């Protein structure tokens, strides 16, 4: 107890130095905490946009569909599979979709559609972000002959609400099918390829045009991100996997998964640099403090304090410094993180002008939110404490080895 008291009081012997060190460590910790929480939050945001537009948290599709994305590789009886899924994951939303490529033309121009998606409007409204991104008109009502297109496509086709466009797609036999559709809504996500090449029509009409009967190419399951992996493996064991593929969102959207992985790696590199600064700060302060007190340690050893106790004294000093700094940093990091978890950050601040932001085919124009979690607070704090212990090792060993006879020269 007396040792702890000594360690704590020793911190304040060189007040300004200790406070400066604490500010440096606290600031680094705050930055680290904020960065971890912001990266986690923004990644979850991107995954959310991705799963809503292109996949689901878990995707069920016909075996072999991933390879060429041919509509002939489809789920012929989706209602049956849907029922099975609902039994396994009762509280999930499941969207039936058909993904196609095709083209749109008007009297004034034409454009390629990379993703023409046939959807059930009622289900899709609960899931998709497109209804929120409409700048004109409404989302699909379910009536035949409607299409929702992006703002860039509308501009290229020089069409507006209520105007007709001609859709060309291939059916399951490879024959070209054309259909005249009326523009019901125009959306703008900010993503260039999405606003140009993503369009939605009703599932029923897609099935009729492609002659797919009741088949779909994708059953997209929406649950929550945290349990998605477990659900994917449960579905893999329960569904008929000789005919069906069950994919976790990471496998369904490998480009996005890879991009997030690279981003996570760069986050760790950044953390490593920050922790390096913290480490240098602690090492410098503790080492200076040990060197200044050589004589004092000699006296303490002379009166019978064991080298281990001296070692622990230095360790306590380093840990106290880190703990106080962590509290200071926590206030800073959490305030910033909390603010951005409520208000979000517009990614437009990172980009100049009107250029669309996209990553792995997913628009990145939604506000980026930070995610405040106790877990991230705890693991970052523990990292800083462990690091401070490691950084204090060399000076503590130095103090451990001080020979009292040399330290107390004038005995």
């Amino acid at each position, binding site marked *: *107890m*007396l040792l702890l*008291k*000594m360690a704590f*009081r*020793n911190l304040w*012997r060189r007040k300004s130095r200790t406070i400066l060190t604490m500010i440096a460590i606290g600031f680094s910790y705050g930055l680290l905490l904020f960065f971890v929480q912001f990266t986690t939050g923004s990644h979850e945001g991107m995954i959310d946009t991705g799963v809503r537009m292109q996949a689901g948290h878990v995707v069920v599709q016909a075996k072999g569909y991933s390879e060429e994305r041919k509509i002939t590789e489809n789920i012929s009886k989706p209602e049956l599979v849907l029922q099975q899924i609902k039994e396994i994951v009762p509280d999930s939303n499941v969207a039936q979709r058909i993904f196609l490529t095709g083209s749109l033309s008007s009297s004034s121009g034409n454009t390629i559609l990379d993703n023409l998606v046939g959807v059930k409007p009622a289900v899709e409204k609960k899931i998709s972000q497109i209804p929120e991104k409409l700048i004109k008109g409404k989302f699909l009502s379910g009536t035949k002959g409607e299409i929702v297109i992006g703002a860039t496509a509308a501009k290229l086709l020089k069409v507006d609400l209520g105007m007709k466009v001609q859709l060309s797609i291939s059916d399951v036999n490879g024959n070209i099918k054309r259909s005249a559709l009326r523009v019901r809504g125009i959306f703008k996500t900010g993503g260039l390829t999405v606003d140009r090449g993503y369009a939605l029509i009703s599932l029923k009409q897609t099935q009729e045009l492609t002659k797919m009967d009741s088949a779909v190419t994708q059953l997209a399951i929406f649950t929550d991100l945290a349990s998605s992996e477990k659900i994917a493996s449960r579905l893999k064991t329960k569904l008929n996997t000789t005919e069906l593929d069950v994919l976790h969102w990471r496998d369904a959207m490998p480009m996005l998964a890879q991009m997030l992985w690279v981003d996570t790696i760069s986050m760790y590199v950044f953390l490593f640099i920050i922790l390096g600064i913290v480490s240098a700060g602690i090492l410098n302060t503790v080492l200076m403090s040990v060197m200044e007190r050589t*004589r*004092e340690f000699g*006296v*303490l*050893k*002379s*009166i*019978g*304090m*064991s*080298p281990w*106790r001296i070692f622990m004294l230095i360790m306590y000093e380093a840990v106290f410094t880190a703990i106080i700094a962590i509290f200071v940093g926590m206030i800073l990091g959490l305030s910033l993180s909390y603010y951005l978890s409520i208000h979000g950050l517009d990614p437009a601040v990172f980009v100049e002008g009107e250029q669309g932001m996209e990553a792995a085919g997913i628009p990145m124009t939604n506000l980026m939110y930070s995610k405040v979690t106790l877990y991230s607070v705890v693991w970052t704090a523990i990292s800083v404490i462990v690091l401070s212990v490691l950084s204090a090792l060399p000076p503590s060993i130095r103090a451990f080895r001080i*020979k*009292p*006879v040399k330290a*107390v020269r*004038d*005995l």
Partner: protein
Amino acid sequence: MSKNIIKTQAVKKTFEQGKIKVRALRGIDMEVKKGEFTAISGPSGSGKTTLLNMIGCLDNPTSGQVEVAGKEVSKMSKTQMANLRLHKIGFVFQAYNLVPVLTAFENVELVLALQGVDKKKRKKLCLDILEEVGLKELASRRPAEMSGGQQQRVAVARAVVAKPALILADEPTANLDSETGARLLEMMRKLNKDHNITFLFSTHDKMVMDYSSRLISLSDGMIKNDILKQQN
């Protein structure tokens, strides 16, 4: 006959300073009995410091034997030496050397805490000894808030509180004016008599030599004189 607290036999210590060998002690044989109040004097470089380091278990001799409180020191490990220092030896340094972040009370308490004495007992022992050295009222002061004489009295209280077999005092009066020095010596003499604690000083100070009951003079690493004076 009183028991020996210190016994040295043919103690030699040679330091190597680069290529030069310095023979600090050239064969010291001496015995100090329990309850003695002995001063070691001698000019600078005569080996006083080195001899006290050997007796204080802070260093090992090159050859010869040192026995403190019945224990052979020369072959002890560092931990054993630290243990012997903690339980058997008290130190009073020239520059007081109190722990600056601890109060007078806590400085005294430190030794007892290291020995593992329980808190209640520690409190009683510390307050008693601080009263004995006349500093009970200053118990909550830190060293920086006390005069040199007061700090040295705390240092003596720290050395004495655990009732060690031996107290080694290095020039304890060197930084004090003569009146304060005399009061300190008076106090140490009283502790010596009341508690039968052995004191061994290294000193240049004539007053310390006058107070001591035995005076050992060193010269060139050897004992020149060993005078047992009339008990005061």
